[in-house]
C-alpha cells in the first residue's frame, strides 16, 4: 500500500463538485450586459479598454505563465494586430469586423516568428533580450514604413469602418457589446485549449522539458503553438484597440506598454486565466485615473509590481481562490 501524501493542501485538489458549476462563469458577462445604460461615454471607454486588455493579458499569460518562457514579445503581437486592422480599414477600406480575424492571424504569425529562438534553445534572459529586440525592430518598422503605417504620426481608423456586418458602432456603448463578445470568446477558447492535452503539454514543458519530450510530446511544435495561439489572442486584442482608440501610433507599442502588459499578468496571477482577466481590470483602469500626473502611474505600477512579487507572488487570483474554490484555476500554479 502506498503511504499517505506529505500534505493534503486543499488548494491543490480540484473537487469535482465545483467543476460542474463552471457555467456560473457565464453569469459574469450576462451581468455586465446592462452596463452601457448606467455609464457615461468616458467610463464606458475605460470599461472597453479593460475588455481590450483581457485578450492581451490572456494571450500573454499562455507564453509566460503556462509555457513559462521569458518572452518580451507580447507588445509586438498587440501592435501587429492593431496595425493589421488599421491598414486593412484605412488602405483597403475593409470594415472593422472583417479585419479581426486577419489581425489575429498576423498576431499568430508574428508569434511563430518570436517563438523560433526558443526552438533553437534560447532561454531565460537571452530569450528576453532577443524578443525585446524583435519587438523594438517591429516598432521601428511602424515608424519607418511611412506609406503603409503613417510613420510616427500613425494612422486613423475611419469611423465608418467600425461596424459589425454593416451595423455601425458609433458610441462606446455599442462597441462594448462587440468587445464583450470578443473578450468572452477569447477567454472561452483559451480555457478550452488550456484544459485539453494541449494545455497540459504547455505546462509539462514548463515543468520539465526533457520529461515532456520523453512522454512523446513534440516540444518544438508545442512551443510554437503556444506562441502562435498567444499571438492570435493578443492580435485580436490589438484589433479591438484599433477600433476603440481610432488611431494607431508606434508610441502605443513601446516599452512602457510592455510593462503595463507585464503588470496585467503579474498582478492578476501568473498562469491563471481568471487572474489575467482580473489583472486587466485592475491595471487598465488605474492609469486612466492618474492621467493628470505624468510619471505617477509609472511609479504606481513599479511599486505595485514590486509589492505583488514580494507579498502576493501568485497574484490577486490567489486571494480570490481563497474566497471560493470555484475561482481556483485548474492550471494556475507555479
Amino acid at each position, binding site marked *: 500500500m502506498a503511504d499517505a501524501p506529505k500534505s493534503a493542501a486543499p488548494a491543490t*485538489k480540484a473537487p469535482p463538485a465545483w467543476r460542474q458549476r463552471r457555467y456560473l462563469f457565464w453569469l459574469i458577462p450576462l451581468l455586465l450586459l446592462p452596463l452601457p445604460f448606467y455609464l457615461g461615454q468616458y467610463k464606458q471607454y475605460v470599461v472597453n479598454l479593460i475588455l481590450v486588455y483581457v485578450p492581451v493579458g490572456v494571450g500573454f499569460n499562455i507564453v509566460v505563465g503556462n509555457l513559462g518562457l521569458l518572452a518580451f514579445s507580447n507588445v509586438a503581437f498587440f501592435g501587429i494586430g492593431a496595425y493589421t486592422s488599421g491598414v486593412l480599414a484605412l488602405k483597403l477600406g475593409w470594415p472593422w469586423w472583417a479585419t479581426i480575424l486577419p489581425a489575429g492571424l498576423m498576431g499568430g504569425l508574428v508569434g511563430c516568428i518570436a517563438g523560433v529562438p526558443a526552438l533553437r534553445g534560447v532561454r531565460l534572459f537571452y530569450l528576453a533580450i532577443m524578443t525585446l529586440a524583435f519587438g523594438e525592430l517591429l516598432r521601428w518598422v511602424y515608424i519607418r514604413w511611412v506609406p503603409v503605417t503613417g510613420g510616427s504620426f500613425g494612422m486613423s481608423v475611419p469611423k465608418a469602418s467600425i461596424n459589425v456586418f454593416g451595423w455601425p458602432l458609433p458610441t462606446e456603448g455599442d462597441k462594448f457589446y462587440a468587445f464583450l463578445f470578443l473578450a468572452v470568446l477569447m477567454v472561452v477558447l483559451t480555457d478550452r485549449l488550456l484544459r485539453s492535452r494541449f494545455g497540459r503539454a504547455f505546462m509539462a514543458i514548463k515543468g520539465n522539458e526533457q520529461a515532456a519530450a520523453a*512522454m512523446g510530446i513534440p516540444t518544438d511544435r508545442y512551443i510554437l503553438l503556444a506562441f502562435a495561439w498567444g499571438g492570435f489572442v493578443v492580435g485580436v486584442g490589438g484589433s479591438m484597440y484599433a477600433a476603440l482608440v481610432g488611431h494607431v501610433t508606434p508610441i502605443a507599442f513601446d516599452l512602457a506598454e510592455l510593462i503595463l502588459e507585464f503588470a496585467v499578468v503579474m498582478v492578476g496571477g501568473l498562469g491563471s486565466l481568471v487572474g489575467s482577466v482580473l489583472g486587466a481590470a485592475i491595471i487598465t483602469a488605474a492609469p486612466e485615473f492618474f492621467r493628470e500626473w505624468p510619471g505617477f502611474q509609472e511609479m504606481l505600477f513599479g511599486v505595485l509590481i514590486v509589492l505583488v512579487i514580494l507579498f502576493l507572488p501568485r497574484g490577486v487570483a490567489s486571494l480570490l481562490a481563497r474566497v471560493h474554490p470555484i475561482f481556483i484555476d485548474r492550471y494556475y500554479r507555479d
Partner: protein
Amino acid sequence: MAALLELTDVTVRFGGLVAVDGVSLTVSAGEICAVIGPNGAGKTTLFNAVSGNVAINGGRILFQGEEIHGLTPHQISTKGVRRTFQNGGLFPHLTALENVLVGLHARVDSDILGLLLGTSAAKRAESAATARARELLDLMDIGHVADHLASDLSGGQQRILEIVRALATEPPLLLLDEPAVGLAPHMRSQLVAIIRRLASERGIGILLIEHAIELVMSVADRVIVLNYGKKVADAPPAQVRADKAVLEAYLGHA
C-alpha cells in the same frame, strides 16, 4: 525470438571523453535487464543514448528491428520506448492525474479545432483519457492521491507515479533510471514486485539502472556491468556475482 532492443557497438563521446565505448546489448520482451557499474561508468549516458537525449558517435540502436538512433526523444517515445528519470522527471506543478494524462498525450485523440469548437468528439476523447488515467493510478494503488500535486506526494508515490506515467501508453520497453534511490525498504520491495509483475504479466522489456545491488540481484534476469564506458560482464545475477572482472570493477568496492 528477436530482441526488443538491440545495441551494437554503441559509442558516445563528449569531447575527448569516451562515455560509452562500443557497448552491445539486447533486451527481450518480458526480460528484466539491469545495468550496473561504478559512478561515471556511462550508465545514464547509455540510457540517454537509447532515449535520444544524447547523440551517438558510433554503432547502432535497433528497437523492434528498426533503427532509432538519430530520432528525437519524442519520436523514440512515440515508438514505444519510455523512460523515467534519475532525479525525478515528474511535473511537480501538475497533479498525479495530470501527470498520467501527459503520459497519455499521444493517445488522446482530440484535435485542436475540435477542442476550440468544443465538439463532443473532442470532449469524449478528453474524458476517456481522464478515466483511463484514473484507472491506471488505481491499478498501482495510488488512485487516492490522483488530485494531489505531484510535488505533494511521498517519495515512494512519486516513483510509482513516474512508472505509471511512463507505462500509460503501454510501451513494449521501459527504461528505469535508478527507480529505488531514496526509497524506504518496504517501498523497495513493493517496487520490485511491481517491476516483476510488469515483465511477467505484461511482457514488458525492462532496462534498469540501479545502485542498490541487492535489489538488482533479486529482480534482474540479466545483469550488465559497465566500467569506464565498456561492458565487462553480461550474465545472470548469480554468475555476475562470481565474475572476477566485476568484483574488481564494482563489487569489490561495495
